């Protein structure tokens, strides 16, 4: 085989042949119509298309070479002509050029481009897609919640092994980070409030303030956000990977319910771990405040703790733990929903995981605001 080591550019000339009135406009090409010359021809002839009507004929008789770019340009000119009402014809191609045209398979009768979507149509489509997504979420949430209750009522059906494994994974994964972050939050809260309260000689109230903020608000909230980032994302990526690898299809055809096999252990594990982590968060947050109280405010350790215990009522702990259970429910279901909704290949797994974490945190903050109104405004 002859190998072309260097390629000298071959020029292309396009000459306009003066046509008698009533005859189609004729352009003669000679030389090579390839990637190097196609753009130039395209520019010249499309200018011509703007000027004229009727028929534009391109004579390929003098063409010595044609490549895919050249063939595509001819088709593109034809398409441009269609749009302007000009019939672009190609004539006189030699058999070698014709063969190349066929080889590149550029056929003008390609699939029509999809019509552009209008703003309102796009808006409507998006709203409809969101409504369907919400419906899917509600269906999944109902299935998994009912499945979990059923599993608790019939404990022999529950996958205890999977539940224990999931719970210990979620717990051990989050233990260090939850402990450290909430300790620092307690510390910061105490510092900030001490700065204000000291001016009134009310430094001891740092204990009250830290305790109530941690138990009612910061403990459940910070824990849930951290768990959403760690375990919510791992639920999504695990389920999404199962989906991409046809494992969920495999469960379906084996007659093993996805809800029982995958979803219920994850939801229950989340419902066990998050409140437990919240208790840890409460304790470490209060510990942070206590250290500030002793070191920075010179408060006595014992009265500080006494003040903390006095300030907290059972309702604070109960609402805090209730909130954390609701957050746990949301994180698990949002994680499952985004994982199970993955279509297509592996690149979708990452996208779903990100979306799951963002939605999870959004859910936590919105739910937390609603709970604040419910517990402390409506129910007093």
């Amino acid at each position: 085989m002859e190998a072309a080591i260097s390629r000298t550019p071959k020029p292309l000339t396009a000459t306009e042949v003066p046509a008698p009135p009533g005859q189609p406009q004729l352009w003669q090409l000679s030389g090579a119509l390839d990637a190097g010359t196609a753009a130039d021809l395209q520019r010249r002839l499309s200018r011509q298309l703007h000027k004229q009507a009727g028929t534009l004929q391109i004579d390929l008789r003098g063409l010595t070479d044609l490549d895919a770019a050249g063939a595509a340009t001819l088709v593109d000119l034809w398409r441009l002509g269609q749009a302007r009402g000009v019939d672009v014809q190609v004539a006189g191609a030699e058999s070698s050029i014709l063969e190349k045209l066929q080889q590149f398979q550029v056929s003008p009768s390609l699939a029509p481009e999809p019509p552009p979507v209008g703003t309102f149509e796009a808006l409507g489509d998006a709203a409809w897609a969101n409504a369907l997504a919400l419906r899917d979420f509600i269906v999944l949430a109902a299935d998994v919640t009912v499945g979990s209750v059923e599993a608790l009522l019939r404990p022999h059906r529950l996958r205890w092994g999977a539940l224990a494994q999931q719970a210990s994974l979620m717990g051990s994964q989050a233990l260090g980070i939850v402990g450290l972050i909430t300790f620092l939050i307690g510390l910061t809260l105490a510092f900030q409030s001490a700065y204000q309260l000291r001016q009134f000689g009310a430094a001891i109230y740092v204990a009250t303030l830290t305790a109530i903020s941690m138990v009612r608000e910061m403990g459940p909230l910070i824990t849930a956000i951290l768990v959403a980032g760690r375990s919510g994302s791992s639920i999504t990526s695990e389920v999404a990977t199962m989906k991409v690898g046809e494992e969920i299809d495999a469960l379906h055809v084996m007659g093993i319910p996805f809800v029982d096999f995958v979803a219920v252990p994850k939801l229950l594990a989340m419902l066990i771990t998050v409140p437990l982590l919240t208790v840890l968060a409460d304790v470490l947050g209060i510990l942070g405040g206590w250290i500030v109280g002793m070191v920075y405010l010179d408060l006595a350790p014992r009265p500080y703790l006494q003040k903390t215990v006095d300030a907290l009522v059972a309702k604070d702990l109960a609402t805090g733990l209730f909130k954390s259970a609701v957050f746990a429910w949301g994180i698990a279901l949002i994680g499952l929903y985004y994982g199970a909704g993955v279509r297509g290949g592996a690149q979708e797994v990452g996208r779903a995981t990100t979306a799951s974490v963002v939605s999870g945190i959004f859910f936590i903050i919105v739910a937390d605001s609603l709970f604040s109104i419910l517990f402390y405004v409506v129910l007093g």
Partner: protein
Amino acid sequence: MTDLSPALEVRDLVVRYGERTVLAGVDMSVPAGEIRVILGGSGSGKSTLLKGILGLTDLSGGEVNLLGQPMVGLPESERRRLMQRVGVLFQNGALFGSLTVGENVALPLREHRRLPEGAIRELVRSKLAQVSMSHAEHLYPSELSGGMKKRAGLARALALDPEVLFCDEPSAGLDPQTSLNLDNLLLQLRDRLGVTVVIVTHELASIEGIADSLIMIGAGRVIAEGPVAEVRRRGIPQVDDFFARMVKADAQATVSAAALLGLQPDRGGA
């Protein structure tokens, strides 16, 4: 199998995704104890046909009868019971990554059979031995090659001794020897246990050796159906094209694959 009714019957199956019609009315009927190949190029709709049959995609129309039971509208508990009589080998094995190969094979047994643990273990070993995977019982799927995953997936599909076995691209990516072993295993299952086998593939290698009959899908429709030799004799252009192309591709791919099929590979050039 004394049952004369077909193991699988598909009538006027239509699948649409949005405005795109993937299957435009497919009919097929597979008698019990037959090895049937669903053949088609990529994008022909053959994989969607398999998904439609197995209830893995929503049908826009048509009926599927599997082992005499209608799949459409079947209550979930009934469907689960029916699926215990069916085995499916997915394209890449679809093994559960958190379970070892042995646990994967044991899963359907634990789920659907009340057997003592010892018996389950013996069954798992025998199924793995059938696909020459005994050595991999305690490995995780991530430690296996593509072909090994497929064989392990087959062992899992056979765990409950299915009456119908579906295989999605079973020999794609297998070396010729393993592919031949797989063919022999499928033939044995058919001959000794009367298992009906439905194979979805685009490869010639899986077809001529073992298939009783084939159905060719193109552009969402049935192009040809019948015994392999008869379909080839009919001279349908798409079928001829397909076989011609596949023979060429195989001759280029490996010499042993061609030898396996009794073809004379073109030794002159590529």
